[in-house]
């Protein structure tokens, strides 16, 4: 067997192994992100993001798109801040992981379905309200040296309702109580459950890709017949 063939096979193997390790590293990154999602630590969430990327962004339900380092820091340091910590519960499980690393190894895409339980304080004061909060994350990741960072994160909120009333009777939180601030980017997709809604397969499972080039992949429904054969 020629040396070139052995070297080519070794390089291919090393690339495959690195991609597999990258998938696990990304899973662990999202796990750490989720573990840190407690009221007293939310101000640290921006550290998980590629803040050196000018288009780093977070889209949360229909709150608009927070784009750029300062907007992301404002989201976690101010918008999501909780002056009262007692009794607030924010648990967002990560399930059904779908992670694809680009062939060039520089970026990745991930989707997780996320059922969640919460307890939030009513604005007027009083006992916390137990809540259901279900949705999905679709995330672009970018590799910085040997470390993965979140580049664009979109939280597709599907259900947000009281524990007591459930998702058919309580539609009071399907949309944000106030319009997004004018400086934010426009919401790209928001299709929460209601008795009138039609469910879609959005965000889709990310498909294998060579190089990141499609910022809209997470809001395009992919039917089985449309899918490429992939690698």
């Amino acid at each position: 067997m020629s040396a070139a063939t052995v070297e080519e096979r070794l390089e291919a193997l090393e690339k495959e192994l690195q991609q597999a390790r990258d998938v696990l590293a990304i899973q662990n990154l999202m796990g750490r992100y989720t573990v840190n999602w407690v009221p007293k630590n939310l101000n640290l969430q921006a550290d998980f993001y590629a803040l050196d990327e000018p288009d780093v962004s977070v889209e949360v339900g229909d709150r608009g798109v927070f784009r750029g380092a300062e907007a992301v820091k404002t989201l976690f340091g101010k918008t999501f801040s909780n002056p009262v910590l007692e009794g607030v519960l924010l648990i967002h499980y990560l399930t059904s992981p779908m992670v694809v690393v680009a062939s060039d190894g520089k970026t990745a895409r991930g989707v997780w379905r996320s059922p969640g339980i919460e307890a939030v304080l009513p604005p007027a004061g009083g006992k916390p309200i137990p809540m259901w909060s279900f949705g999905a994350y679709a995330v672009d990741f970018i590799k910085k040296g040997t470390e993965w960072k979140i580049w664009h994160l979109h939280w597709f909120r599907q259900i947000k309702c009281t524990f007591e009333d459930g998702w058919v009777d309580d539609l009071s939180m399907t949309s944000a109580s106030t319009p997004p601030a004018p400086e934010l980017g426009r919401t790209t997709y928001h299709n929460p459950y209601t008795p009138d809604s039609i469910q879609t397969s959005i965000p889709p499972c990310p498909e294998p890709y060579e190089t990141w080039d499609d910022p809209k992949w997470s809001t395009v429904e992919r039917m089985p017949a449309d899918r490429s054969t992939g690698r």
Partner: protein
Amino acid sequence: MPEKISSERKQSLVDAVKRLQAYEEIQNNMGRFMAAFNFRQADKVLSHFALNQPDVSLEIADEGVFEGPEVVRQIVGETVGAPVKAGEMLDLQLNTPIVEVARDLKTAKGVWWSPGGGAIPQDEGLPKAIWYFGMVAADFICVDGAWKIWHMHWFRFIKCSYEKGWVEDTSMNNRLNTPVHPLAKPTTYHNPYSPLSIRDGIPAAPRPYETWTDSSWMLERDKSK
């Protein structure tokens, strides 16, 4: 003349494969462990523990730390191995996995979040349906080529009535006011949800590491690490 492949490069590849295999085995074993736990299969649960390690341990909510092979055998036998009652159910599931295999490939650390439901038979009437949520953190050790649980801590944060939910019903947050198990060592952490609790982000997510030193990582509050 073909260029020789360096031994370092070969070893790097072998180690990468072993690390991935370890991750896969640990994930699968935790699935088996949880299924056995749900179905009261005490022997299967015990088969996943490193019972050859003198400090093998299991900490259960606020019941304490059970340390040592015979102690772990006893507590698993008494709890998981208790007789099955009609109408009883526990369905704990695993998600949000965070697993780090040590660079030396001898140990690993893992956290899973675990939502669940249950039903507790009553003396009279129908069983009581409950929500039962927690998180599990564990050290693993490779024993004769098989990954085993070395130290496990079950962090229960919700145990409440299905109807009332976790804000209204905090009656089962803490253990009954009865003597602790004679074999139990003091609980290291128990912070169930209540309207007065502050969430900590514990158990902490394990980070990449070279060689295992201790289990303090589970209670690490410094999230910058």
